[in-house]
Every structure is written in C-alpha cells, then in structure tokens.
C-alpha cells in the first residue's frame, strides 16, 4: 500500500490517478463500513449508506479544501447520511421483528425473549463479540457515534469534535458516558449468566 497521506492520495485522484482512489478505499473500507453499520444497526441500509459515502467522495472530491484531514471529511459525510437515515427511521413507529440485526444475523424477534445470549451460547465462539456489538448498538446515538469514531477509526477527540460539530470536551463527556454504559450492560449480562 502507498505511504502517501490520505490528502495526497485524494489530490492524486483529482489529478486523474484512479489507483490513488483505490488505495484510499482499501484504507477506509473496513472502518467506514463498521462505523456505518454500528450506527444504523442494519446491514441493508448500512451497505447503501457506505456506497453513498464513497459516491459523494468521488463527486465532491474537488470541494475538499485540505484544511481538515481526509478522515474527518469522510466521516462527516458518513455521519450526515447516517443521521438522515435515522431521521427517516424515526417515522417508522416500530422496527420490523423480522428485520436482520447487524453483525448477529438474528432478527429482533429472535432476541426479544432473552436480554442476552445464554450461557451455552456464550461458550460458542464469537458470542461475546455479538454481545459487545449489541451493547454498542444499545448506546444512545450521540454516545454511539463518538464511541465508534474513537474505537473503530481511532480519531482524536478534536477530530471527532469536528465531525460531530460539538466541542472536544463534550466529545470526552459523551465518550465517558458511553464507556460507563457499556460497562454496566456487560456487567448486567455477566450477572444474568451467573444466575
């Protein structure tokens, strides 16, 4: 993979170097898709949003001023699309019980009878990760987006502040609340397993 910075790669792409864009996609495809997926909690819309984000990057790369990092710009676009999607979803009173959930491949109906996976299930590989994923998805939107940007993309707090449009101290607070909540959720599941 190229050692060039994201910003140089984007400049090269604007100048006609399609391979530079390929490198950018390679760098960000995983983290971006996971941020979007955990934000919208649904694989189908997540794929659409993921594609839309890159299409906007292609269409609007000439608008990128270079005074911010490419990653900040990319996640700002992603966040706007996710927020739009979430707004649309609010019009729907209830999520379908047959809708597949991100990561787990389970429907909401499958999950409903039990607050967490069974002890047997925990013994199976990957279940703990599913539980963490569920805990993250259960976070309030504001805390979740901060948490995802920090832990999936590794953005600095001031960069997250730019993406989200709030002061860096607010980002830190949201991050702390998110962690405390995750901690509580995971502890509750542990206690449930012990019973």
């Amino acid at each position, binding site marked *: 993979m190229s050692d060039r910075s994201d910003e140089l790669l984007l400049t090269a792409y604007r100048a006609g170097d399609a391979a530079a864009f*390929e490198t950018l996609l390679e760098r960000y495809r995983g983290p971006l898709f*996971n941020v979007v997926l955990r934000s919208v909690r649904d694989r189908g819309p997540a794929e659409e949003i993921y594609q839309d984000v890159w299409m906007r990057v292609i269409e609007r790369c000439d608008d990128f001023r270079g005074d911010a990092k490419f990653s900040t710009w990319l996640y700002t676009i992603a966040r706007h699309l996710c927020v739009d999607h979430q707004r649309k979803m609010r019009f729907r009173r209830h999520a379908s019980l047959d809708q597949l959930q991100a990561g787990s491949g389970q429907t909401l109906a499958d999950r409903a009878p039990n607050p967490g996976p069974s002890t047997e299930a925990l013994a199976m590989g990957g279940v703990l990760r599913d539980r963490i994923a569920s805990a993250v998805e259960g976070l309030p939107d504001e805390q979740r987006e901060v948490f995802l940007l920090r832990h999936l993309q590794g953005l600095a707090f001031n960069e997250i502040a730019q993406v989200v449009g709030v002061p860096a101290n607010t980002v830190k607070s949201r991050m702390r609340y998110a962690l405390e909540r995750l901690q509580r959720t995971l502890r509750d599941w542990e206690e449930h397993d012990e019973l």
Partner: protein
Amino acid sequence: MNCDECQEQVFELIERESVDPQAVHEVLDRCPECRALFDEMKAALAGVAGLPSEEPPTEIDVAILRAARDRVAKDSSRRRKWLQSTQWAVAAATILAVGIGVWAVPKGEEIAMEEVAMGDASSEEGDAAEVEASPAAKSIAARGPEKRNAEPRTVARAEHEALAVRDARSPAREVFAGAASQGPARLAADSAEDSSAPGARAEPQAASRECARRLAKVERRAREGTAKPIAPEDALAIGRCYQAVGNVVEARRWLERAALHPKTKDRAARALSELQAE
C-alpha cells in the same frame, strides 16, 4: 488531587488525554476504590475492542471503483475537449488578429498618406497637380516601378530637397528682408486682391513680412525634410514676393507653379501677365 477529581480523570488517563497523568497515578496508587474504577474502565475498553469487524460486500467496492474510474475518464475527456476548444479559440483569434492587421495596416498607411497629401492649406487635388507638375515628380515617375503607396512621400521629399539646395544658393531671407525695407506697393496690392477684404489693403511692410514668413516656411520644410508639398497659396505669395523684388525668373517659376492649381490659377495668370508687361 482528591478521589473525585481522580475519578473524573480516569477516563482521560486511559485515553491518554489526561492533563495531569502523574497526579492521577499518585491517587490510583494510594486509593483502592479509584484503582478499581480505573481497572473496570480499562477492562470495558478492552472488551469493546473485541467488537466484531464486518466487511462490506465486494460488489459494492467494485461498483465504487468503477464510478471512480468513470470520473477520471470523464475528467480527462473534458480536459481534452477543453484543450481542443482552446486550440480552436487560439486559431480563431489568430486568424481574426491577422485579418484585422491586414485590414488595418494599409488603412493606417492610407490615412498617413492622406495626411501628407492634404497639406496644411490646399486641397488634395491641387497638391496632386503640383506634384505631377514638379520636375522631381517627373524624374521619380520616370525612375520606374516603385511602390505606389510610397510614391507621394518620396516625391514630396525630393521636392523639398530640391528647394533646400536652391534656398542654400539664394539667400531668400535677405532678399525679402530687403524687399520689406523697399516696401513695394505691388505686394500690398496682391495681398488686397488675394483676400478681397476691404481691410486687406495693408501696409507694404506687412505684405513683405508675409512674403518673408511664407518663404521661411518653405525653408523650414526643406530643412526638416517635411513631406508636405508646398501649398498653391504659398507658391503664389512667394512668386509675388520675387516679383516685388524684381527677380523675374524666380517670380515666373513660382507663379507658373501656382497657375497649375485651379484655386490660384486666375490670380497667378494675372500676375504672370503683369510680369511680362514689366
């Protein structure tokens, strides 16, 4: 730092954003409760680090890359088109500039020639007759094919050169200065006839001054090599001046010259007949 402040800072410490990490570590070392909170939070973060990572579908990535390449292709074709249109624009502008140049340069020359040919007082027609009649013009005409546009200038220049040589031989200024002192009445009469105004019956001295002025003008032109031909009025006046001082040969020469122009023809003819009678 107390425990509350430490617990506020625990998160920042884990996230490596603590303002005073040394102070937080000191509290963590001595307070088991703060230490427990720190460990819990660290464990929670380690736990969420195990968040499963999912891959986007390959066909979406393929579609994205195709769109990226399409944009590059569109941009390059747009650039090519722009370059082509620029080339056309440059070619069109060049042709236009050349066309304007071809039209404007002869126009400018014509204007310059007209200015030269117009002279300061006489009409173009009279000047042309004058030039045609002059020996210099004839010699130039006999010289052969020269550029038609450049000819009048050359003729005028030759005329002046001839005048300059002649003026150098005959000190005209002195002659007319003498004429002014003699005060010939004829000059005054000519001036009256020329202007036909009642007040024009001027003093003889004023008339001779006029002669001197006109001759000085001719001299100046000859010296400067100005490409303007001598006006028929000047020729008539100079002829009168020579007539006044009794230089019959020069007087006839200038009057005959003035007689070639329709404007001064009659007056010059009268002066010539007077000259003959004398």
